């Protein structure tokens, strides 16, 4: 009740000197309604601000000169039209600025609320109004629960900034991406978890996913790789490294985030205390990087809004412990119980070579994407318990000419074995840091974004729902 009284008073004070109609605003109005009323008053005041031309005409009608040219001379002398035009524009801008500030305050939480939560609250308020219960209390509770989000968000600006994390902690935040042309059996997220992408389209590939992020900067899931997690905490061995973005939530484990729209993604698990919102109240990045223990999921999960891409990545790690026959956790002796150790070692070497071949194939594919998309390519390698970051640089190998000949005779990149490609292209891994990766990001221009968006529309990558 005090709150409503106070609101009424606020309005009264506001309008005291102006003797305006605003003082009649009813105390029962919600914050949203209060804001809408003020917005419409700003709009009216700007519109009713009579046009300068009308005023000039009135003056000229009241003092009519015989020689009309004199009017023009005086106007010119005073630079009247330009000055009045500038003031009219300024008045419009002042109005727009105020409206945008109010929308920012009142619209902040709305953008992050769980759709079900909003729906339920609206339903409860309607029910309460019908039954005579205290609808105002439901509304007040709703705001009490959500309006601190903006504050929490702003207080943790640095902790939530990907650029800052890269600079200060030498950590990279990545978004793993499918490469269906090389790994056709790897599954995309379910329709339930992503209501935005047209998951039934099997031809949505690496480049399309890249385009969605580069062109639209949607709120995405991401993770921070770590050497102590299985597969270095990566859902896919390749994808993009982010350069910018704000972290909405950061969980030590897979949070099963659901994309309700391009810009609304909310964790499904691990947010019992704030299920209603996409914003996790307090995040602690360093605590989520290491593995949560043996039974934990393989990767941590962050949700990131307004992401920008720094480059592509490929994980080139080979887990030597996995290929160690003497490792107590090794599967080899279990799989081949009757074989001699030398035979098992042969099997291990064979599988290791296959793995290397697979990684090379992926790396050369990433080289093509990196060239086509004009962004740097980086590699990760788990070395001595540390996840090292490298910039990948390709140089022409000795057999470049024979490779070109093969292309001439119809060979494509895919049907040239990677060991042969290695002779054609060799690559160097240059150690790098998260800061260097951040600093080498390239901006996507507005025109490029528009082209990307058009190509996504043409390909129907978005769900029709």
């Amino acid at each position, binding site marked *: 009740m005090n*709150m409503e009284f*106070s*609101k009424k008073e*606020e309005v009264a*004070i*506001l309008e005291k000197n*102006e003797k305006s109609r605003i003082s009649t605003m009813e105390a029962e109005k919600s*914050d949203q309604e*209060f*804001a809408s009323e*003020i917005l419409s*008053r*700003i709009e009216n*005041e*700007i519109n009713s*601000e009579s046009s*300068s031309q009308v*005023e*000039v005409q009135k*003056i*000229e009608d009241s*003092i009519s*000169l*015989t*020689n009309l040219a*004199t*009017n023009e001379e*005086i*106007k010119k*002398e*005073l630079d*009247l039209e330009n*000055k*009045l035009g500038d*003031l009219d524009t*300024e*008045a419009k801008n*002042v*109005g727009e*600025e*105020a409206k945008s*500030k*109010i929308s920012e*305050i*009142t619209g902040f939480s709305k953008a992050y609320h769980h759709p079900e939560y909003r729906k339920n609250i609206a339903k409860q308020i309607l029910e309460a109004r019908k039954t005579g219960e205290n609808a105002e209390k439901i509304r*007040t509770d709703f*705001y*009490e629960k959500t*309006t*601190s989000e903006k504050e929490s968000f702003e207080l943790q600006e640095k902790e939530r900034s990907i650029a800052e994390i890269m600079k200060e902690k030498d950590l990279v935040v990545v978004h793993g991406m499918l490469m269906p042309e090389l790994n056709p059996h790897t599954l995309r997220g379910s329709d339930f978890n992503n209501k935005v992408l047209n998951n039934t389209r099997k031809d949505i590939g690496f480049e399309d996913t890249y385009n969605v992020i580069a062109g639209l900067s949607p709120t995405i899931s991401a993770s921070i790789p770590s050497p102590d997690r299985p597969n270095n905490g990566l859902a896919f061995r390749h994808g993009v490294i982010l350069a910018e973005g704000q972290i909405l939530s950061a969980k030590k484990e897979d949070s099963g985030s659901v994309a309700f729209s391009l810009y609304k993604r909310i964790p499904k698990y691990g947010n019992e205390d704030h299920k209603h919102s996409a914003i996790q109240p307090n995040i602690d990045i360093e605590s989520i990087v290491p593995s949560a223990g043996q039974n934990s999921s393989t990767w941590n999960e962050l949700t990131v809004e307004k992401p920008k891409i720094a480059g592509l990545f490929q994980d080139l790690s080979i887990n030597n412990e996995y290929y160690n026959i003497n490792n107590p956790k090794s599967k080899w002796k279990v799989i081949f119980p009757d074989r001699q150790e030398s035979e098992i070692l042969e099997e291990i070497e064979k599988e290791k070579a296959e793995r290397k071949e697979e990684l090379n194939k992926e790396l050369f594919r990433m080289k093509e994407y990196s060239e086509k998309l004009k962004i740097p390519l980086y590699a990760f390698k788990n070395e001595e318990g540390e996840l090292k970051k490298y910039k990948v640089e390709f140089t022409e190998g000795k057999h470049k000419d024979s490779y070109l000949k093969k292309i001439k005779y119809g060979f494509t990149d895919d049907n040239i074995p990677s060991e042969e490609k290695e002779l054609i292209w060799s690559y160097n891994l240059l150690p790098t840091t998260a800061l260097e990766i951040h600093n080498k990001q390239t901006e996507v221009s507005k025109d490029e974004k528009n082209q990307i968006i058009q190509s996504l529309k043409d390909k129907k990558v978005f769900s029709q729902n």
Partner: protein
Amino acid sequence: MSLDIVSKIKEIYSDFKNKLSDIQNRKKSLFKTYRTKLKEAKIKELQKSIKS
């Protein structure tokens, strides 16, 4: 927290009104100068017509 929103909106609206009022004053001043100049020109016109 609801109070917080109301007070912020109030602050924004007051700021808007102040800025708008300043613009209106600058416009009024321009109109006043224009009116004065027109009056001076009118007087000159009248003086000229009396003389002739």
